[in-house]
């Protein structure tokens, strides 16, 4: 242990107690972010302790990265500095739950799975169907900006996050929003925290509106010979106005992966996931008559669209298609020895070009896996059987073509996962036109630049 590390850990111990500080080198490594290891790890028990640590860090200009279960810490650029890891998993209570109002206030480190179980007792849920569901915390989910598979029906976190408490860069405990479902009092600062990768503040508590658990669920799979016909079918579903909770389109490569995962989990492998065609998966929910009607209409639409096969799909558990697709971000990262994983948004009018996007790995030593999620969110992975100079160079070239492809269509792309060397060489963030505005927000929240420096867009 170096003198600096020992010193930092000791000072943290003086601040919030020895039992809340980790200083052993081997344990520090678990908090590594893109190759950087912190000098100390703190596990505050409450918001006041978070504020203590942040005030200390601000005074000493030490860099703080807050984390929950650390499942998505590689999103963003490598940090420029990293002194203190602030682990929020010591704060995991439900602060307030008014089931009759469908509102909830929950501590940062609460797991999304534990929260799901607590809400289920009141037949309610939070539509955060996010990857790493078993381990992910609510604050990590919000700060990472990761998609929920249910966004088609329930929107993104900005549509149901109604307030937050967080510690700003001066070490003050602040709040915005409230605990009611409709509220325009003051600036909506909590919206800025979504997807901010911890660069604005340390989230200590989040307020959400909750939703009633639907009476029934249903799922449907259809497989097509070409990407074009799968997209056409998808667009027909959207045009029909049928209420769908999730809508995913898989290219043949990704159907193979999903099929293999289901097989490994001893779950049923639907015929549509044979790895031969493009597949469209739909989940839907509602009362019995709604679920029956949607199932009937989807069957008809699939037939009219020329589906090779179509079938009902079970969706409820993690060993079934819906649960596996929710985890796509997680397994795509590890689906091959080398993976570059993009998250892309394209305007509806450009979805016809998606088959072309999926071919952008062709001719290279890379395989392309593409998943078009609800509301135009695309996960596109380029994979290689080994990591070497040639495959890395191919990935770097393909990545810059993906960025150009997306920007030419007024979309957005972020490279969520790539070999560290590729990340360091390039830029994981796509174009961001309003950097001057972003910097002003960052400066207001974190005047000493102590929160996760360098990880966000434009070097923030």
């Amino acid at each position: 242990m170096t003198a600096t590390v020992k010193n930092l850990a000791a000072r943290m111990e003086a601040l919030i107690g020895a039992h809340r500080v980790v200083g052993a080198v081997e344990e520090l490594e678990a908090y590594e972010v893109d190759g950087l290891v912190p000098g100390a790890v703190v596990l505050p028990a409450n918001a006041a302790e978070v504020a203590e640590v942040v005030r200390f860090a601000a005074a000493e200009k030490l860099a703080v990265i807050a984390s929950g279960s650390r499942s998505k810490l590689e999103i963003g650029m490598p940090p420029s500095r990293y002194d203190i890891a602030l682990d929020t998993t010591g704060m995991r209570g439900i602060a307030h739950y008014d089931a009759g109002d469908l509102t909830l206030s929950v501590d940062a480190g609460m797991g999304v799975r534990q929260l799901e179980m607590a809400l289920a007792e009141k037949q309610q849920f939070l539509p955060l169907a996010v990857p790493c569901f078993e381990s992910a915390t609510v604050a990590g989910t919000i700060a990472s900006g990761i998609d929920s598979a249910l966004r088609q029906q329930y929107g993104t976190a900005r549509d149901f996050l109604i307030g937050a408490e967080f510690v700003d860069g001066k070490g003050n405990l602040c709040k915005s929003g409230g605990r009611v479902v409709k509220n325009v009092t003051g600036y909506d600062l909590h919206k800025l925290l979504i997807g901010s990768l911890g660069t604005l503040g340390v989230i200590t508590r989040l307020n959400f509106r909750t939703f009633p658990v639907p009476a029934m669920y249903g799922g449907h799979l259809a497989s097509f010979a070409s990407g074009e016909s799968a997209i056409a079918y998808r667009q027909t579903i959207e045009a029909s106005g049928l209420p769908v909770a999730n809508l995913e389109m898989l290219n043949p490569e990704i159907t193979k992966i999903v099929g293999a995962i289901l097989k490994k989990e001893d779950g049923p492998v639907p015929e549509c996931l044979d790895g031969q065609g493009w597949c469209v998966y739909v989940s839907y929910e509602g009362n019995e008559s709604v679920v029956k009607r949607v199932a009937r209409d989807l069957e008809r639409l699939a037939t009219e669209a020329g589906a090779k096969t179509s079938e009902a799909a079970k969706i409820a558990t993690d060993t079934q298609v819906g649960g596996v697709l929710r985890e796509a971000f997680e397994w795509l990262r590890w689906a091959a020895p080398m993976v570059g994983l993009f998250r892309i948004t394209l305007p509806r009018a450009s979805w016809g070009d998606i088959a072309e996007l999926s071919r952008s790995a062709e001719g290279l030593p890379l395989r392309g896996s593409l998943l078009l999620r609800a509301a135009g969110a695309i996960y596109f992975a380029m994979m290689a059987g080994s990591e070497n100079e040639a495959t890395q160079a191919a990935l770097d070239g393909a990545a810059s073509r993906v960025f150009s492809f997306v920007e030419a269509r007024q979309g957005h792309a972020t490279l969520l996962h790539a070999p560290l060397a590729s990340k360091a060489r390039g830029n994981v963030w796509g174009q961001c036109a309003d950097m001057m505005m972003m910097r002003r927000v960052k400066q207001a929240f974190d005047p000493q630049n102590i929160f996760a420096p360098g990880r966000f867009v434009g070097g923030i």
Partner: protein
Amino acid sequence: MLSQKEDLLLYEYDGSVEKACPELVVFPHTTEHVSRIVKMAAKYQVPIVGRGAGTGLSGGALARGGGVMLVFARMNKILELDVENRRAVVQPGVVNMDITRAVEHAGLHFAPDPSSQKACTIGGNVAENAGGPHTLAYGVTVNHVTALEMVLPDGEIVRVGSRHGDATGYDLCGLFVGSEGTLALVTEITVKLSRKAEAVKTLLAIFDAVDDASQTVVEITARGITPAACEMVDGWTLRTIEDYIHAGFPRDSAAVLLLEVEGLREAVEVQAKAIDEVCKGHRAREVRVARDERERDLLWKGRKNAFGALGRVAPCNYVLDGVIPRSKLPQALQHIQEIGRKYGFSIGNIFHAGDGNLHPIVLYDPRDPKQFEKAIAASEEIIRYCVELGGALTGEHGVGMEKNELMTLMFSDADFDLMRRVHDAFNPDSSLNPGKIFPLSKGCGEIRVKGKETAGVGR
């Protein structure tokens, strides 16, 4: 441009009880005009405030610091309708309803529907993050805005957000929508267009006791029935409306609930039946279902034109905008009536019950200064009570210059310190819409924003 006293007086008011007179009113036609006017105002250190149709209910579009008022009435063009991507790009002076009118042929609509939607402008909706009856299902303005072009107080033209959503970086659209014109002047807005539902059913539930109606709302919410709108009108208010509009609200009832369910035919049938059961379980005298579009329109006409009707019975009405947890609705309504009795006012209630967004209406005569003071005191007591219940100062009307002194009920010095830093990041001299949102009162020196608010002429 207007500069004569008698012309300026027209811009002294909005829909609130506040007043403040600008020294100059200008009507820009383009974003460049806005930028040049703002630069000139900055040069002479004159405050600026933006204004749409002036239907706001919190004094947000009043020139509290005097100076120049930019009225966006001439920037009223729909610049682009993109049906395929379900987007519209509009100037701030476009009337809310006109967006829906322009796209309904394609089965689309702009979802936020404030009661004033036939007059209010989208720029004002963005500034205040306006709601409306159907926000229960669709969300408020911020949920339907994806990109903004704005002019900062130094005249710079900037763009935030992204037309198709999921913009890279911080959610700046989420910050600027609802910032009440205190950070920037919005000059172009990209909005989402929503699909019209396959089926709609509008129900009118009639009650002999207010408490039965509010208990019904509590149960509808708790049972997870999700109507697209759930509005309550109390007996006193509905009689006033009937005198004016003849919407068919029974004059002898104590309260009605106006409920709407939307979605697939199958969902609508089941939800309407569930609502009918809950209403009858709480002693509803009758639950009517609008038989056709005409009956439906008439019921909504009664709801949306209520404020015009109320203007006929008292010289002035003061519309409040508190929010409470929906589980506490019955006790809140009882307490509001007690406050009314204490101060000697009639207080009507017509509000978004499904959201817990109360609009108590205090009727008073503004020519009697004592009555005005008492009306303000009663209103403050109601709002304080909403916050005590775990609620909020404002659900959709904004803080403006009406509730800025009450902000300390909800926010700490640390909260204000951060809000002020965000304010100063874009509007460092408070030249833009001074005297709004932040409390100005003595003893709160730490939370003041810099600049010109002392020139305020508010109450």
